[in-house]
């Protein structure tokens, strides 16, 4: 008994790099039948979905993919004209999201595509509204990703016009529905207006540039280190994402620019008219104010 308990504690304290192969082995053996059936059920479930809803989702995803293809083609043409060598462009695969709903799998979800489909660790996960998360573990036919509510989620970000850069991280709300994002590390003199859309900056080597992350709803706090933090209303609620796009051939270094895939204007309802004070995490972090 004591030996087993010790072994379990050792497993818990193992570095993540050693835990991942263990997880993969268990998932690939004991849980394999469940995951195989899950894939088949997901396929069948998609057949029985409301056709109109399915068509709308398909059309949205197809529009994003098609717009990206056009840009890729244009990019290739321009690079050829300039005599630059071509580079690998980002491409995406559609996937179904499966929420596990167990204690250790909060803020994570399973995807029904894996390394055989080109998914790899660090592949960005998007929906038609913006950034959902990033892939953390990959099996041959499935993968596991974290969404932006995960405590370790980070993405380098900027305003649409590129005037302010920072790092976006999650802020836990009193209830999960109140989870928000925060743009940290913005210069103290920066003045980002509520409603400004924040997108990925492309730096950091994970996410291509231009994916919507959220819209500013107010200042969270002014750090003593001459930095400002802005509360963001996320572009995507993870719990609402049932079908996503996974980047399967994103450039090394996240050089792709996806800015043109999304409308430039922020959605009209993106600004909290009641002010940031109505937002859960703000109250718990020293109070928020409108700039």
């Amino acid at each position, binding site marked *: 008994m004591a030996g087993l308990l010790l072994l379990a504690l050792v497993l818990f304290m193992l570095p993540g790099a050693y*835990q991942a192969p263990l*997880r993969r082995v268990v998932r690939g053996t004991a849980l394999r039948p469940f995951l195989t*059936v899950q894939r088949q059920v997901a396929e069948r479930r998609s057949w029985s979905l409301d056709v109109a809803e399915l068509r709308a989702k398909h059309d949205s995803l197809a529009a994003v993919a098609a717009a990206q293809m056009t840009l890729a083609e244009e990019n290739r043409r321009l690079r050829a004209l300039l005599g630059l060598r071509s580079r690998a462009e980002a491409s995406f695969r559609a996937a179904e999201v*499966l929420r*596990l709903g167990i204690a*250790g*799998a909060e*803020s*994570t979800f399973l995807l029904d595509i894996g390394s055989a489909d080109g998914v790899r660790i660090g592949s960005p996960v998007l929906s038609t509204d913006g950034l959902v998360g990033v892939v953390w573990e990959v099996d041959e036919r499935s993968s596991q990703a974290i969404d932006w509510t995960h*405590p370790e989620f980070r993405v380098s970000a900027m305003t649409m016009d590129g005037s302010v850069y920072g790092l976006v991280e999650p802020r836990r709300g009193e209830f999960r529905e109140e989870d928000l994002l925060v743009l940290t590390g913005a210069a103290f003199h920066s003045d980002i207006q509520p409603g400004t859309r924040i997108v990925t900056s492309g730096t950091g080597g994970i996410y291509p540039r231009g994916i919507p992350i959220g819209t500013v709803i107010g200042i969270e706090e002014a750090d003593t280190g001459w930095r400002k933090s802005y509360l963001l209303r996320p572009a995507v609620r993870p719990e609402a994402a049932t079908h996503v796009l996974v980047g399967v051939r994103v450039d090394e270094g996240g050089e792709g620019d996806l800015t043109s895939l999304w409308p430039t204007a922020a959605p009209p309802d993106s600004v909290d008219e009641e002010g940031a004070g109505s937002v859960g995490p703000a109250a718990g972090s020293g109070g928020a104010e409108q700039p």
Partner: protein
Amino acid sequence: MTVARGWSYGVLIALLVVIYFGLHLVLGLGDAVPDLLTVAVLLAARRLGGSAAAILGFGLGLLRDSLSLVAFGADTVALTLVGFLGSRSRDLFIGDSLGFVGAYLFIGKWLHDAVYHVVAASGGRWETATSRLLIEAPLASLYAAAAGVVALLLYRLVTGER
């Protein structure tokens, strides 16, 4: 306990495990599914020795932890401990009534959640551990205990065991 009854009880435990993972992984029902895995360990522990119950808890905990990106190993610790203590509880409490089993499952599940959250929180997530332990865990324990009692009732109806 006869060999036949031992087998049929083993089938009940196996069914709880299969149903649990089936509802989570195949149907994706998430939070709506009661914690049948802990219920399975607790029910099995009443009929197994301490070591066997701990091994069962370790194995099932590892299975669930394989889906955890947040606190791998925490559930293995919790279920190993709960399995062992569940087995030892026979030395202190004797009873097979549904009321007793319900109370046993409620306390066992709450203990599991307490151990899990304490172990997981040692990785730096104390802020959520307290509220979960005091608010979410009792509700989840009640739900799991009710599911366990229903499963045991069905088992007794099918096998005729009293």
